[in-house]
């Protein structure tokens, strides 16, 4: 009789286990993750870093996202990226305190320093110790245009409010009298340096003006495309980190300390590699001298750049060069 009870109890236990397993495998509405995804770090006000498109905006965002994540981990606060589609947009963001800092090309950096008292802090250095770039006027290798002087009556792709894509080619065109000629070059405003090179490469623009660093990268990626460089500007600082005046003292030292030390630790080096640089180095306003000189030399032709407002002025304590 005891065996009968053992068998019956065992069978009931097995049945109960089976039912429990079966019920356990049923989909449940309770499987909702109710954990608060917002960490303490996420609840602190984010550091907002502005960007201006200079290349493929999606690829640019990925590069800067890596840097932003690194900074967020180091600062203990979230870092947001704010991409404006125009230089006016980022300058407006500075004015309205919608960004705390921004990576700006040299022309907009000078405008930010001049108009909003922003402080330039750091600039990235790439392989070979290069922390500057030049503007280059380029045509396809098979183009009949042999020099800048031949641009009259031809289309040229330019990037508004950039030194390499706007100030330098306008400076060259003004200097060579092309801008004032009866057949000035037809300007096509594109959005990024990469777009300038692509428009020239596919033949939708006869010439273009862009950053040499982007052209180097394009030529490396497209060896079949042959490009001829007609002119190059003086070097200017690569896209530098500019801090808004109101928060420069608050976040500037911490950012400088973290970013200058990035190349001395493994995670930092990995982030720099993803970003496309080997280190950050200090940047000073004086390094923008070439920009100021080109802007000054434009005179009234400054308006032709399509940049609203007056040209940038050197900061206090540095008198304008004579002439």
């Amino acid at each position, binding site marked *: 009789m005891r065996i009968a009870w053992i068998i019956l109890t065992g*069978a009931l236990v097995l049945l109960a286990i089976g039912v429990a397993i079966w019920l356990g495998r049923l*989909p449940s509405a309770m499987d909702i993750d109710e954990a608060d995804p917002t960490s303490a770090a996420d609840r602190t006000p984010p550091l907002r870093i502005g960007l201006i498109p200079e290349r493929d*905006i999606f690829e640019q965002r990925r590069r800067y996202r890596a840097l932003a994540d690194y900074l967020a981990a180091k600062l203990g606060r979230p870092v947001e*990226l704010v991409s404006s589609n125009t230089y006016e*947009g980022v300058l407006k963001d500075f004015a309205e305190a919608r960004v705390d800092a921004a990576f700006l090309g040299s022309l907009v950096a000078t405008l930010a320093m001049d108009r909003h008292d922003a402080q330039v802090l750091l600039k990235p250095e790439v392989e070979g110790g290069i922390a500057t770039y030049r503007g280059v006027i380029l045509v396809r290798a098979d183009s009949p245009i042999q020099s800048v002087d031949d641009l009259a009556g031809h289309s040229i792709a330019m990037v508004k409010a950039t030194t390499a894509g706007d100030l330098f080619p306008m400076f060259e065109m003004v200097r060579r009298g092309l801008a004032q000629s009866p057949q000035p070059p037809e300007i096509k405003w594109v959005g990024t340096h990469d777009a300038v090179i692509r*428009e020239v490469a596919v033949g939708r623009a006869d010439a273009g003006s862009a950053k040499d660093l982007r052209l180097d990268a394009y030529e490396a990626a497209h060896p079949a495309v042959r490009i001829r460089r007609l002119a190059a500007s003086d070097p200017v600082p690569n896209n530098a980190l500019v801090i808004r005046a109101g928060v420069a003292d608050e976040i500037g030292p911490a950012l400088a300390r973290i970013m200058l030390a990035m190349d001395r630790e493994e995670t930092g080096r990995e982030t720099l590699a993803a970003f496309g640089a080997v280190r950050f180095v200090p940047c000073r306003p004086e390094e923008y001298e070439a920009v100021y000189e080109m802007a000054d030399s434009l005179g009234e032709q400054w308006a032709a750049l399509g940049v609203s407002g007056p040209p940038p002025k050197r900061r206090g304590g540095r008198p304008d060069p004579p002439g």
Partner: protein
Amino acid sequence: MLRRKLLLMLGSLVALLLAAAVCALLLLQDVLEDLNHVSSAALTGTTRTSVLGATITTIEAELNEIHLERETHLDRLIDTVETLNEQVRDLGQFFFIKEDGASNYQRLLEFMPIFVRHVGDLATTRDPELAAAHADLALEASVALRKEIAALGNISQAHAEREQQQVNVKFRWMVLGVAIVFLLVINISIMVLLRAATMILKPVDRLVEASRRLAQEEFDYRVDVVQHDEFDELARAYNGLAEQLQLNEHRKIETLHHVARTLNHELNNAASIIELQLKLLARNSQGEQSMAKPLGQIHETLKRMSDTVNALKRIRRIVLTDYLEGVKMLDLKRSVEEGPRPGESPSQTMVEKNPDDRTAGA
């Protein structure tokens, strides 16, 4: 032993039923999971393709906002494009894509960078002519993407319907299989129960029959039960009892035979003398009529006595009958017969309860 056999049989039956039930549950669970997979896959596949289309629409709307300069930031556009990329990557993980929609998905992957590049250019280009060119190219890529997405949606639907059909077929086979298995189990259960019943009823019938025979004084009847259990022991006990009763009966008959022989010996001598004296009396009476009758009666009585004694020697069994109220005597006529007559009830053939009854009968 019998209990163990019954437990083994019933335990096996319960285990068999349990195993069949567990197997049926597992199969049902399998089918339920398949059904769940089909419904979720169909829903997810259709939803994902719909969401992809919606994301493209969002990108187009965002581009329009930028074009109209109502939006000066690119973050939402970039985020949406990244979302689109993730959605396309996620879509590639679906089984129906790998199985049926590989070519469409491949074309989708080819159109994606074209679409994304023109979206990026369109969002940043300030030249109206170039913007129009990029808008045309982006629209072309968008249309191509939507076509492939729609095709993938149809493939997802068709795949889900096919899987649904397969699950239906699987479910039908499962129901059929489970029904057959349970029919088998029920048949086996019936056979096992019949076997268990036979195991009990058959020896019980034999023992009942043996008891009846015993009641009818068939002491030579034996029960044949060979199943090594309690019934076996009971049968052996019965057989032992029957043997003992048969032996007792045999002894009683033997004793009666001894008594008969003794009586025969003693009465024969007396009867011979009486017979001789009767013959002398008959000769001396010389045919006198008044003597002839009593002498004849004495002769007849002597003959009856001799017959009774002879009958006692031929007793084969002991059958008692009522002599007086509460007093038994031997039914000599029936006791010399071979066995009980068919239909003779135990009340007619009574085994003596004590030696007095036998003596009284004798």
